[in-house]
């Protein structure tokens, strides 16, 4: 299984990264940015599908909450009515999950490739050798130069700029996805999640190789841009008020969002 993973996913990305490195002024920082953009571009259709499914899911949330209240004591009925609601809305409950599951291996591979390609220690460099194709270009490029701007990509950012960028960009992206809700309990949980993940990744960045932080930051910003064009500003809209529990209102597309899309296409 591990061999299959290496041969089919990890090694092609790893060797592609070395080829990109050769073409990008032997700069691994630029290589990480390019790789992230390429992988984001390749997985774009899946990302859009996932975002639209998430948006649809968010839009039926008020209806779902109503159903949960209505059939709180009858689990079977609740399940039936929930499925019925999904069917009526023309959506698959796994719609957000499947694209994400397909993308996950690619993201994990990219994450591993960045660490492997940087080969911070002699053991890492030894381990890199069998993963490289026998192409002369690839063999002549390694070991890669780990310096980018003020960073040693194998070490944490000493200036602490990247932890702020990683945490900040992740907060922005999550804030866009988070849909305000009328349920105070749900809202408080949303708020906690909104802070927890960015803080956690910010703290990770303090001790992880900064190459990974560059990848997280670029990926987050591409995610923000993609999200903006697919679903609009979402939770970042200053006027974003808690969604009413009215099923009719909640099921309607937001007018400002429509306007934004129009602006994009015009």
């Amino acid at each position, binding site marked *: 299984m591990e061999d299959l993973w290496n041969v089919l996913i990890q090694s092609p990305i790893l060797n592609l990264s070395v080829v990109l490195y050769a073409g990008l002024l032997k700069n691994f920082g630029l290589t990480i940015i390019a790789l992230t953009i390429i992988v984001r571009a390749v997985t774009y259709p899946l990302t859009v599908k996932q975002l639209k499914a998430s948006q649809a899911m968010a839009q039926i949330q008020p209806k779902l909450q109503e159903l949960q209240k209505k059939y709180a004591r009858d689990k079977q009925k609740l399940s039936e009515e929930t499925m019925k609601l999904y069917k009526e809305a023309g959506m698959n409950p796994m719609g957000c999950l499947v694209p994400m599951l397909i993308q996950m291996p690619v993201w*994990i591979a990219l*994450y*591993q490739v960045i*660490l492997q390609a940087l080969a*911070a*220690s*002699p*053991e*890492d*460099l*030894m*381990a890199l*050798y*069998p993963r490289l194709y*026998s192409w*002369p270009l690839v*063999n*002549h490029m*390694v*070991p890669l*130069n780990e310096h980018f701007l003020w960073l040693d990509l*194998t*070490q*944490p950012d000493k200036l602490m700029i990247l932890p702020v960028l990683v945490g900040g960009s992740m907060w922005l992206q999550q804030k866009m996805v988070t849909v305000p809700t009328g349920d105070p309990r749900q809202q408080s949980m949303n708020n906690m999640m909104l802070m927890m993940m960015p803080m956690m990744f910010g*703290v*990770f960045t*303090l*001790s*992880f*190789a900064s190459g*990974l932080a560059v990848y997280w930051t670029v990926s987050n910003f591409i995610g923000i841009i993609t999200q903006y064009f697919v679903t609009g500003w979402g939770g970042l809209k200053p006027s974003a008020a808690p969604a009413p529990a009215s099923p009719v209102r909640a099921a309607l597309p937001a007018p400002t969002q429509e306007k934004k899309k129009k602006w994009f296409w015009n």
Partner: protein
Amino acid sequence: MLSSACASSIVQGWSGPTVDDGIVYIGTMQGKLSAYDSSNGDPKWQKSLQVPVQSGFNFGCAPGAGAKPLAFYGNAAADSSSVFIGSYDATLGGTIYALNKTTGETRWQYPRADRIGSIAGSVAVSQGTVYFGSSDGKLYALSASNGLEQWTYSTGNKIWDTPAVVGNRVYFGSFDRNLYALNAADGSLVWKFETEGAITADPLVVNGTVYVGSFDKHLYAVDTATGKARWSFQADGWFWSAPALSGNTLIAGNLDGKVYALDAATGNLLWKYETKGAVRPSPAVSGDTVVVASEDKNLYYLKASTGAFIRATPIGVPILSSLTIQKGLVYVYTGQGLLIAFNAETGTRVWEASTNG
């Protein structure tokens, strides 16, 4: 998965044994420099070398505040009174330690206050001067008696190999793909020879020729006087370590798992032997026997003249540390904390010592 994201995820070290005046010195994976009697493995002394670690954000990556054991990749080197070893730490940099050969007490360490790059090669000691390369791309020359800096020479990338000092020249390779020859007295450049890959292999200098392997999969023979190639040989993988010489036969291990024997004068292939794992350390030669350590967890004994297989000794773990042969004994550090002495002729285990204590 997250733990693998830590800066320098794997740093264990692969320092090999050095035998000097009846003592085996080894930089252990527990961050100690240890000394053993070479004839029976009795411990002489052990010095724990650690660096202070300040508290801070080390989420899942590093030990908390306190002391952190150092990693050693190069072998120890000794002169008449001291034993020297360089340490590797990607975050904190490298340090050269000079210890009293008899007691293990620290004589000096370099640098004292500043930081230099991590040290992945061994120290070369010659005529009162210690020479070593560093991951900061510099070759350093220090006084062996007090550690005072004599000169430095900057290259374009990391230096992970061990310099060879022959006559008044220092030869070494760099990740910047060049093999350098410097004047040992003042560090001035005599010549440099460019290969197409990084160099981590120690140069071997014999009879006016420098033999050095590169990540471009070539082993080069370079004229010491002119810095021009006499010949080159292409293998299937990277050369990570120095070749060994047996008579007129040059024997080199390669990460492609093969051992190549070449005519030292012409570079013609005489024989090759394939193991099932990468051969990182240099082969060790005793008479017509060459001993090779492979990542396939075996020690191979081959006839140096023909490449004929004599025997394989299973060790149980991949062997990345260099081997040393002296007075009929092969010394191997297994990386599991065992220093083992084998009979070079029969392959039997003569003694073993645990370095974990």
